[in-house]
C-alpha cells in the first residue's frame, strides 16, 4: 500500500523549503521503488515547524518538522518503519499549540487538498450551501445576523446588517466582492485560507450571492500573493466543474459565478471604496460615503463587500447554526478570530480562538516570547494602522470594544512582536512614511498630514525643539484622525500616538535607553 504524505504548498511553507522537500520525497521514493502519494495541502499554521510533513496512519496523521531535504531519506525510512525520528511531533491534532485552538474557519486548512471538491465535501464542505439552498433569503439573513459575525477585515461592522441592506435594495444587477487585499503587515490569514481552503471562501460568497440576489462575484487579491491567486483560480475551476458555480448551482435555480482580479501594489485598495474603484479599472481613490457600497457599490450597483475571513466564516454558521458560532466569544465580539502571531516571535503562526483571550496569553504563553530571546517591548496589533501596546497593557482581551477602549484596534488580528532593541520613534516615523507613500491623495489630512508628520518626527529625533514638535505631532494626529476620509489617514495616528504615549522616552535626541544598550 502506498504511503500518503502531506506537504504544504502554502507560500509560507514554500518560503522555507516545502517545494524542495516535496521534490526530495518524490525522488528518494522513486529511487527506492517505494510507493508514495504526495498531497499538497495548505499550512496548519505552525510556521516555526514548517516545512511540516504529515503521514497518514491508522492512528491519524503524524507530523514531522521542520523538515530539510537532507533529512528526507531518513524520514522515509522512519515512515516506512516504526515511525521514530528526531523530528517526529506526534499525532498532528494532539500538538498542544493546535489542540488549544478552536478552528471553525480554519478547520480544513492544512488538512485537505485545496483543489479537490471531493476532499472539501468529505470534510464537511458545501453542507452550509446545501442548507442555504433550502432556506429563504430572510432565513439566511436571520442566521447570519444572530451569529453575531462582524466584518473580519477590521471595521467589525455586523455582516448580517450589510447583507440585509443589499438584499432589500432593488437593482438590475448586484455584486458580491471579496476583499483579499490583505496588505497589513503581520497578517496572513487571508492568504492561508485562500491557499489552503479556497473553497470555503467560494462557498461563503455563493451563499452571499443567493441571499442577496447577486449572480456575479469578484475576488480582489493583491499582486503580492501570486500563490493565493493561483490557488483561488484553480478552486474556481474545480467548483465550476462540479456544478457549484455557474448556472443552476447544485441543481437549484440559482446562478452565481466568480472571477479573480489582481491588485497592483496599492495598499489603500484594501479600503473598500478604493477597492471598488480599482475593480472598475480606475485609480484606487477613496470614495466619500454615503452612498454606502450596499446601496451603490461596484459599477453603481448594490454590493456586498466583505473580507475573506468574513465569507469563510459563513459556511460554518449555515451548517451548524448561528448559535454554534455565537456561543464562542465575549461581549459583542462573537465567534472565533484567526489571530496571526508574527514578527520577532518564537512560535509564530495562525491561532484561531474565541474572542476574549488576552494579549499576554497570546504573546507569552502561546507565542513563547521573542525569537531573539530578548524581552518583548512592544506589540503592534492590527497592522500598520494599529496601536503599539506595551507590556503594561497585556491584560487587554482580544475583543473589538476592549481594544478600542485602550486606544487600539484589533483590525485584521495581526500581532507583530518587537523586542527591546526597537526604537519607537523610528516606528512612529515609519507609520507616517507609509501613510505618505500609500495615501490616495484625495483628502488633505492624510495627504499632507502624513508628510508633515514625517518631517516633524525627524525634527524630534534630531532633538530640535522636542516639546513643541511633539505638540505639533499630536495636533497633526488629531487632524488626521477626525478629518480623513478613510482609515488610512484616520488610523495612522494609532501607531504614532500609542508610541508617543507608551514609549515617550524614545522621542528625543538619541534615546538614552538604546545608548545604554550599546
Amino acid at each position: 500500500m502506498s504511503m500518503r504524505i502531506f506537504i504544504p504548498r502554502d507560500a509560507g511553507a514554500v518560503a522555507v523549503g516545502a517545494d524542495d522537500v516535496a521534490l526530495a520525497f518524490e525522488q528518494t521514493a522513486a529511487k527506492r521503488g517505494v510507493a508514495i502519494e504526495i498531497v499538497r495541502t495548505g499550512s496548519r499554521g505552525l510556521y516555526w515547524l514548517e516545512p511540516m510533513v504529515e503521514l497518514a496512519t491508522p492512528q491519524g496523521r503524524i507530523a514531522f518538522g521542520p523538515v530539510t531535504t537532507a533529512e528526507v531519506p531518513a524520514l522515509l525510512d522512519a515512515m516506512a518503519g516504526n515511525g521514530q525520528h528526531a523530528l517526529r511531533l506526534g499525532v498532528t491534532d494532539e500538538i498542544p499549540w493546535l489542540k488549544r485552538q478552536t478552528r471553525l474557519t480554519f478547520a480544513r486548512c492544512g488538512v485537505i487538498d485545496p483543489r479537490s471538491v471531493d476532499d472539501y465535501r468529505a470534510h464537511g464542505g458545501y453542507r452550509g450551501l446545501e442548507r442555504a439552498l433550502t432556506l429563504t433569503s430572510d432565513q439566511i439573513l436571520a442566521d447570519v445576523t444572530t451569529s453575531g459575525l462582524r466584518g473580519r477585515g477590521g471595521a467589525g461592522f455586523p455582516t448580517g446588517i450589510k447583507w440585509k441592506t443589499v438584499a432589500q435594495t432593488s437593482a438590475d444587477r448586484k455584486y458580491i466582492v471579496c476583499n483579499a487585499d490583505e496588505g497589513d503587515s503581520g497578517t496572513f490569514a487571508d492568504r492561508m485560507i485562500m491557499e489552503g481552503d479556497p473553497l470555503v471562501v467560494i462557498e461563503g460568497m455563493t451563499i452571499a450571492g443567493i441571499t442577496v440576489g447577486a449572480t456575479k462575484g469578484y475576488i480582489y487579491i493583491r499582486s503580492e500573493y501570486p500563490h493565493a491567486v493561483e490557488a483561488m483560480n484553480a478552486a474556481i475551476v474545480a467548483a465550476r466543474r462540479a456544478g457549484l458555480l455557474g448556472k443552476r448551482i447544485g441543481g437549484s435555480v440559482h446562478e452565481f459565478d466568480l472571477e479573480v482580479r489582481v491588485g497592483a501594489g496599492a495598499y489603500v485598495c484594501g479600503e473598500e471604496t478604493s477597492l471598488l474603484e480599482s475593480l472598475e479599472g480606475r485609480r484606487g481613490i477613496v470614495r466619500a460615503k454615503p452612498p454606502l457600497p450596499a446601496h451603490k457599490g461596484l459599477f453603481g450597483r448594490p454590493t456586498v463587500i466583505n473580507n475573506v475571513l468574513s465569507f469563510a466564516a459563513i459556511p460554518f454558521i449555515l451548517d451548524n447554526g448561528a448559535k454554534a458560532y455565537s456561543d464562542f466569544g465575549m461581549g459583542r465580539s462573537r465567534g472565533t478570530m484567526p489571530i496571526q502571531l508574527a514578527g520577532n516571535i518564537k512560535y509564530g503562526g495562525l491561532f484561531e480562538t474565541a474572542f476574549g483571550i488576552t494579549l499576554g496569553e497570546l504573546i507569552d504563553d502561546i507565542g513563547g516570547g521573542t525569537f531573539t530571546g530578548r524581552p518583548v517591548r512592544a506589540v503592534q496589533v492590527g497592522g500598520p494602522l494599529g496601536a503599539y501596546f506595551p507590556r503594561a497593557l497585556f491584560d487587554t482581551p482580544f475583543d473589538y470594544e476592549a481594544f478600542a477602549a485602550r486606544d487600539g484596534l484589533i483590525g485584521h488580528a495581526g500581532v507583530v512582536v518587537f523586542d527591546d532593541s526597537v526604537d519607537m520613534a523610528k516606528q512612529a516615523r515609519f507609520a507616517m512614511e507609509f501613510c505618505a507613500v500609500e495615501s490616495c491623495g484625495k483628502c488633505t489630512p492624510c495627504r499632507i498630514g502624513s508628510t508633515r508628520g514625517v518631517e516633524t518626527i525627524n525634527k524630534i529625533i534630531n532633538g530640535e525643539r522636542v516639546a513643541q514638535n511633539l505638540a505639533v505631532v499630536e495636533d497633526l494626529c488629531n487632524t488626521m484622525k477626525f478629518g480623513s476620509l478613510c482609515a488610512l489617514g484616520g488610523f495612522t495616528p494609532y501607531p504614532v500616538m500609542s508610541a508617543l504615549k507608551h514609549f515617550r522616552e524614545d522621542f528625543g535626541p538619541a534615546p538614552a535607553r538604546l545608548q545604554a544598550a550599546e
Partner: protein
Amino acid sequence: MTSGYEPWDEARGAEIIAEHSGLEGATLVILHALQEAFGYVPEPAIPMVAQALSLSRAEVHGVFTFYHDFRKQPAGRHVLKLCRAEACQAAGGDALAARAEAKLGISLGNTTADDRVTLEPIYCLGLCATAPSAMLDGRVVGRLDETRIDALVAEAQR
C-alpha cells in the same frame, strides 16, 4: 527575467488589449497583461488601451501611474524584492536590507548599472511568521539571515 519578455510590438500589444477589453473594468487587467508580456508597460500602449476602452489617455495614464506595480521601463534581469514592513522590521529586516544594498551598491528602488538586478522594497508578502522575507523573480524566501541574503544577492547577480 527580462530576457524572457517579448520586445514591444504594436500588433502584439493590440492583440493583448483586444483579448481583455470586453471585461468589466478591464484597465488593470490589460496593464497587467501587457507588463507580463513585455516586462513593462510600453508608452505607446497607453493610447491604445484608452481607445479600446473608450477612455481618455489621461485616465489610462492616471491608472498606470497610481499603482506601484506597473513599470515605465524594463526591470533588471532579476528582481529582488525585500519585505520592509513591520513584521520583517521586527525580525531584523532593516540590517538585512542595508546589507543587500551595500552588496549590490544600489539603494532600494534601483537597478544595478549592468542591468542585472533590480532591488525593490515590498510592503508585506504575508510571510510574517517566517520573517524576514523576500521574493526573487516570483520565488518566495523566508527566515532570512545574513547567509541567506548573501546567497540570494549572489544568485540575483548571476
